[in-house]
């Protein structure tokens, strides 16, 4: 019992002490003192022998004196040996001196050979090694060889995967093994048929060989390479010709003789005298000439097109006269009995029908006009001259956008139903540059999967996202509204467009259309809310602050009755209050990961601000921001103590000298990290680099206030970028794939050769 009381006393004292300590500890938030320690002043060190030797190596390199540079390097080696023998660490300068000596060598080949030898040294700085490796990799012959290897892997991998995949799937579904294998082999054959003679990687190799020959015309490899270049160049020419011929044939089959002519001509530019290209061009020319002749004939005067008889003359006057009774005259003509033997009378009636439609259109009787024109267009051209004019009007998407609108909608519906019923074969087999029946035959093995996939497609149908759907109809609908804002179909078209724009999330356009349609305030309110939210997101995604500000102001003014409109107004005000010329951020994690930046040689940050203890003040995960000029913005964990809350911001101006040190160390660190660790990317940012350049030169007195001078680059730690564990690409060239198929309810496991990734410059070869 006594012991128990004693324990209670101890516990009470402990609690009181804890409460006292908690009460005395500083609350989180910005520290009362500044974030930075006084700038460290280094004493001036007198240069030693190693420094002089390094200087001599640099001088010799700049003067193009490899012997002198090597001599300096030898001195450094000797100094390092002496240091080692006395138990001191080597200077580490010798490899750099050797690199400088290599740079003074006269030819690229010698420099490359020396660099390769240098990489054999064991005392290389990792960053120097990475840089040398990069230089060595930038060898045209090496690059060409790599690209050719990739081409071979791609060719082999395509064949292997085409066979391995169906075999792997057949484990659980042996019935499908044969059709899948046949499909795979057929697909392979088609791919081979459609593929270019020279692959992209082979063309990259060709470009590298050309580069090598241009740089080394007298190299021993050059003569053999020239032969190879000629061979590959022929292949590339044939590839280009084949592409153009394919285009020309396709154009001819679609009645586009002009395109076919141009394509065949381009093929001839690559391979003059090519028989196929000549033949195709001749055919295209013949068709073009035919079309020209037909067009010319339509302009000629026919034998009966001479003087008009009196009724025709009067009708013509009525047509041309201002305020003439076009419709009335046309009706009177049509009411008179027709004389089948009199050609002039037939022509007059023909023209009267056309003119009646014109009069109906001018009187706003849109439906009657198009009905009359459609009937006239259906007349055989031998009997009615006006039929072709009526047909031109009816079929013109410009003149008759309502019809085009309806046709486009029907096409969308047909496409959707076609996909539902026939899946990937809804629009027929893909173009394989083969006769159409053969293309259908190749697709036969897929029909089973298409048939069994119907339930799957039925389930997916409601969420089917077809980017083409509605776009053509919307364009024609808008065209119709532009021509006839009060037309017979205007309300229907506008209503469809409102739904269409809403369905694709373009609420701003939907609001505009609904307003034109005279929608009530109640109907508009939710739409306006969505539109404002849409615009606000667009504004927030805008990179340039001037455009962002203009956007926000526009939303605040036009959508002041919405929540997002008010938010936009607040954001616009905040942006003005917190505006700074620069927004280059260094996260807390990055500072912790790279102590040199926070250290006394750069930022000089008080260590307790990144020690993880809130009580002594702690930087927010956002870290610090170089805010333009010599101003640094420190972001602290807010007094609430939660890192999820917005930070408490304090700004501090630093000396130009400190700012120069900060950016120098920051840039050096980022570049070194990028060299040593391939995942530590240091992305290009012109505005950031320009700011750093000015900071180093001490030119930050007058910050550049232009929006295009602002950088919002963020230096983030590896953990912030990749999380705790970084994913690594397997070193094996093969993936093991476990694949389930919902349509066929099958399961398969098979190896798949990983295709080589295209190089970043591959788009220049497409």
């Amino acid at each position, binding site marked *: 019992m006594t012991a128990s009381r004693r324990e209670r006393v101890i516990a009470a004292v402990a609690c009181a002490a804890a409460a006292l300590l908690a009460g005395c500890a500083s609350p989180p938030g910005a520290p009362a003192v500044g974030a930075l320690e006084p700038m460290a002043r280094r004493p001036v060190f007198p240069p030693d022998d190693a420094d002089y030797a390094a200087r001599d190596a640099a001088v010799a390199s700049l003067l193009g004196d490899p012997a002198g540079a090597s001599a300096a390097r030898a001195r450094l080696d000797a100094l390092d040996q002496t240091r080692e023998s006395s138990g001191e660490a080597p200077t580490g300068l010798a490899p750099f001196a050797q690199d400088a000596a290599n740079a003074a060598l006269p030819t690229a080949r010698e420099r490359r050979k020396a660099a390769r030898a240098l990489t054999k040294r064991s005392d290389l700085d990792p960053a120097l090694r990475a840089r040398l490796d990069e230089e060595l990799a930038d060898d045209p012959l090496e690059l060409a060889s790599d690209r050719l290897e990739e081409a071979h892997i791609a060719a082999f991998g395509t064949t292997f995967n085409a066979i391995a995949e169906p075999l792997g799937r057949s484990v659980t579904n042996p019935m499908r093994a044969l059709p899948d294998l046949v499909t795979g082999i057929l697909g392979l054959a088609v791919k081979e048929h459609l593929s270019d003679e020279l692959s992209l990687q082979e063309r990259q190799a060709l470009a590298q060989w050309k580069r090598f020959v241009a740089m080394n015309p007298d190299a021993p490899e050059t003569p053999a390479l020239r032969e190879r270049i000629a061979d590959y160049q022929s292949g590339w020419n044939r590839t280009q010709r084949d592409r153009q011929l394919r285009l020309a044939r396709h154009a001819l089959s679609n009645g586009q003789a002009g395109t076919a002519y141009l394509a065949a001509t381009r093929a001839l530019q690559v391979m003059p005298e090519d028989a196929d290209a000549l033949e195709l061009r001749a055919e295209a020319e013949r068709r073009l000439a035919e079309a020209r002749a037909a067009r010319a*004939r339509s302009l000629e005067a026919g034998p009966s*097109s001479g003087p008009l008889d009196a009724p025709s003359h009067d009708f013509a006057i009525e047509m041309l006269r201002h305020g003439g009774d076009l419709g009335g005259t046309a009706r009177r003509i049509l009411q008179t009995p027709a004389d089948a033997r009199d050609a002039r009378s037939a022509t007059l009636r023909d023209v009267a029908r056309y003119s009646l439609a014109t009069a109906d259109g001018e009187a706003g009787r849109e439906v009657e006009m198009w009905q009359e024109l459609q009937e006239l267009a259906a007349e055989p*051209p031998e009997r009615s001259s006006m039929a072709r004019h009526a047909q031109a009007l009816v079929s013109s998407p410009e003149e008759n956008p309502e019809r085009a609108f309806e046709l486009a909608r029907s096409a969308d519906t047909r496409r959707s139903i076609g996909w539902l019923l026939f899946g990937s074969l809804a629009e027929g087999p893909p173009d394989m540059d083969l006769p159409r029946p053969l293309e259908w035959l190749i697709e036969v093995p897929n029909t089973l999967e298409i048939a069994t996939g119907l339930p799957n497609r039925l389930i997916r149908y409601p969420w089917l996202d077809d980017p083409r759907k509605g776009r053509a109809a*919307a364009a024609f609908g808008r065209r119709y509204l532009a021509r006839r804002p009060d037309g017979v179909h205007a309300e229907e078209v506008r209503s469809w467009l409102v739904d269409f724009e809403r369905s694709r999330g373009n609420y701003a356009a939907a609001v505009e259309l609904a307003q034109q349609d005279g929608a009530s305030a109640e109907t508009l309110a939710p739409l306006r809310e969505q539109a404002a939210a849409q615009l606000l997101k667009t504004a927030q995604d805008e990179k*340039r602050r001037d455009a962002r500000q203009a956007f926000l102001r526009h939303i605040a003014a036009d959508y002041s009755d919405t929540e997002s409109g008010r938010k936009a107004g607040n954001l616009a005000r905040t942006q003005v209050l917190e505006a700074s010329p620069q927004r280059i951020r260094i996260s807390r994690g990055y500072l912790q990961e790279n102590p040199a930046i926070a250290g006394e040689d750069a930022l000089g940050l008080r260590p307790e601000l990144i020690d993880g203890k809130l009580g002594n003040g702690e930087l927010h995960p956002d870290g610090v921001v170089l805010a333009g000029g010599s101003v640094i913005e420190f972001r602290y964990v807010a007094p609430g103590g939660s890192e999820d809350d917005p930070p408490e911001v304090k700004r501090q101006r630093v000396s130009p000298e400190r700012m120069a040190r900060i950016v120098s160390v920051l840039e050096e660190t980022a570049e070194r990290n990028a060299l040593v660790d391939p995942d530590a990317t240091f992305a290009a940012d012109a505005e950031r680099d320009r700011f750093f350049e000015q900071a180093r030169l001490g030119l930050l007195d007058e910050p*550049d206030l232009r929006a*295009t001078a602002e950088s919002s680059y963020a230096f983030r730690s590896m953990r912030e970028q990749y999380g705790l564990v970084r994913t690594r690409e397997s070193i094996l060239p093969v993936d093991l794939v476990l694949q389930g198929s919902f349509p066929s309810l099958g399961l398969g496991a098979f190896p798949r050769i990983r295709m080589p990734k295209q190089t970043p410059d591959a788009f220049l070869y497409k």
Partner: protein
Amino acid sequence: MNAHRPDACRLLLALALGVLFAACAKPVEPDPQHKPAASVLEVVAVLRRHVPDDTYRFVPARDFTGRNVYRSSLLRLENIEKAHEEALRAGQFDDVIAFSKARAMERLRAFELAATSYRRAAERDGPLREDALRSASICDSLAEAARIGFDPDRPEEDTDAPPPTEGEAIVAASDQRLALLQALLAEAQGTHYVYVIEEEMERADVARAQYFVASRRLSPDGDVRALAELQRVTERHKESKNANRHLIALADLYGDLAREYVTKHPPEGLLFDPPTFQELVDSASRLYEAVGTQDGTPEKLEASQRLEALLAFTLEVDSDRFTP
């Protein structure tokens, strides 16, 4: 010898059949779709339908051959005149043909010829006389306006007063031209001439801008002035059928300025200012994108390809000097 007789018979028979087939074969019927116009009335009816068209906002209509309907109508009328010259010599149809030709010509900017043709139509004392005289007067005014000021596409003429070649004079002449057209616009309300006059006003604005674009290198603020003039055109003619084209022209100028900037200040040099270059590229890109997102217009393709070309050009600029 006898053995050869049947062969000869067969040959003769084949020849005879060949000749018979050739004689019986129908000549290839020309496509009726492209037959010549059946009557002047056909041409007039088609033309009449398109007289009230708003050619300022919408692309002029095309006929069944794909030609501009005003041009094809004019060609057909001229061919009819030529082909039936004898029959038409009496002049009883002069008013109809001359009036129709004038209606077509005024849409092809041949205002002087149109006025002459209208006067010819007015020579006959008929129902068209009054309209023809009124239209002739408007075409005279349009022709007069078209002769004022700088217009790079105007054919060279021997005139006492050569067109102005200096900035302020160009602006003054353009203002004068616009004032004349503005006055004409009020007079032409309710007629198709409103659209013709709006087209002419647009043309005057474009001509003025073209002068400043062409001469921008001759003055220190030439680039800024050229940009301002092209912006003025885009602002004033948002409703025009050429609105997208005006935007492309403005984007092209920004693109040209970006290229010239790189030539003047190589990116690797100390005088290259990344924000300036960025502003030029941004401005061009935004304009191209604005046009490139408009479905159903040929300018969409043009703007998209030009944007691609501009971005390809920026690849030549070091990434530490320009980051797209």
